[in-house]
């Protein structure tokens, strides 16, 4: 199966990066999805999508005030104009020389590097490596909707694990979150509240 390309890198740091994508590519990336940026045969950075932002400009604002906008004009603005769609990614780990680590990457990706959606096999491999070390990066991000992000990610990862005959992964992930948040009641409640809305827990 061909890798699903979701955009190219606009800006980056060790803790995260932002990709620009075309409307045609917007069907693939989802909030909470795991993505990867290959930077060579032996080095690849992983991250979680925590925000998908559709920017406006003067023309779009003007068109938005019109009673009806015809389909051709909408298609022109979505497909031809350079109104950027920005996908923000939280760095979650990296793979170097075949070893997966849930640490911040030693160096960030560079401008215009390609960003791909991780396939279920890669999601399983990344999320099963170590012991949920990448949760740290999510939990310390004060400006992110932590509960919603974890719920979205766990739901997607759980589907990948369940499909491979490992339905217990999500229970372990939830237990780890409870341990990590035992001293932060407010965040724990927010995370558990969001987790309660996803498929394995709301039956």
């Amino acid at each position, binding site marked *: 199966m061909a890798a699903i390309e979701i955009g190219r890198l606009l800006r980056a740091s060790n803790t995260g990066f932002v990709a620009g994508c075309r409307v045609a590519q917007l069907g693939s990336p989802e909030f909470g999805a795991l993505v990867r940026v290959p930077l060579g045969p032996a080095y690849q950075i992983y991250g979680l999508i925590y925000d998908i932002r559709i920017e406006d400009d003067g*023309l779009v604002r*003007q*068109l938005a*005030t*019109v*009673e009806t*906008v*015809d*389909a*051709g*004009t909408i*298609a*022109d603005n*979505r*497909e*031809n*104009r350079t109104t950027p769609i920005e996908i923000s990614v939280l760095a979650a780990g990296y793979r170097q020389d075949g070893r997966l680590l849930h640490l911040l990457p030693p160096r960030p990706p560079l401008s215009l590097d390609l960003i791909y959606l991780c396939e279920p096999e890669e999601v399983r491999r990344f999320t099963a490596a170590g012991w949920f070390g990448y949760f740290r990066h999510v939990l310390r991000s004060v400006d992110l909707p932590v509960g919603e992000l974890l719920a979205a990610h766990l739901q997607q990862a759980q589907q990948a694990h369940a499909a491979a005959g490992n339905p217990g992964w999500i229970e372990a992930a939830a237990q780890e979150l409870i341990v990590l948040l035992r001293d932060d009641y407010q965040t724990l409640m927010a995370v558990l509240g969001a987790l309660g809305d996803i498929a394995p827990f709301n039956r």
Partner: protein
Amino acid sequence: MSIDFQQVRRQIIELGEAAERSVANNRRLLEEAQYLLHEHARDYDAVRRKIERVVQAYDRNLRCALPLDEALDQGYPLPPLPGQVAILAADGSQIAPSRHESFEYALVNVGAIHMELGAAQAPVLQVESRLLYEAQIEDLTDATLALLRDLGERRLLADLATELPPGAITLTDGQMELWLGEAGSRDEHSLFQESLLEYKLVLQQLRAAQASAAGYVDRPAGRGVMRMLEVLRMTEQELPEVRRSKPFRPLRDLHLFRGLLRPGERSALFEIQSPSSSFYADDLALHFFYLNVGLEGRDSLARVEVPRWVVDTPAMLDDLHAVLVQQCRVMGGRPYPYLLHRAHEIALVTLQEKEEITQMVLRELRGRGLEVFEKSNKQLAKDLESGRR
């Protein structure tokens, strides 16, 4: 220190006082102009004869409107939109050569957009970028560079329209008459003459493709109809003074047709009488009308220039009229044809892009081991200033 706001403030007060004084006078002039328009609304032949006589006897450079056979003081209603029609728009921008830059070059960038009315597909875009250097920029002035740009826009439209079924509508921003400006050196005039000949071929190509061509002028400053009325108010004895007699000078045609045209309506058609009329002869003769592209209670007048073959084909004229209003309505409360705006966006060369092109040129030259100069000291100092702002 940039502006002495105290000085400017005093002058702004004087400006306000002058504007206040002008209001009553302009109102009186407008009433007189409106009266003349109604008075001569159906005297097409007499008006044409008088203007042709003035041109022959007193002012060969007279620029004014010539009526056709439509009542001058009426609005002509918005026709229905055609079912299917291709709309093409083009615009251009340019980089002028500067001896203060690291390398002297010019660039003409022309962008075109093609949309099928009513289709859900995204329009098709096309860009033509032409780099000019060495001998190509010798004697190149701002006026001749603008001329190359204008010609490039129309040439691209003609080439695209030729590939389409008959009935395509092609739009450019601004007047259709190629314009060099008031002054001009001998070299400029020579290039202008060459461009005119090529422009004529482009127009003929559009006519052969059975496409309509139109130049759209937003907030027009034209006063061809006013000038026509100035001639009409003169007695036979006064006509020798026609060059100096411009009593309606503060007014533009815009003032005359505002209130006369309801939203969606166009004015009567006029032919352009100008020193270049003889060049745009027969089917290429340039005409114009005013068009209220605004909404109820929010008039917005544009001037639309078209060649004779459009005027002589009622279906073509109606389609153009309807499509222009539709295109303006796409933009809501600030009516301007959507595709012309998009063509402008496509063609626009930003400062960042200009800098990128300059760097590409310098890399090419350095890669060949050629000497590359720095920007002039003056330009470097200016760049410092702009970086500080």
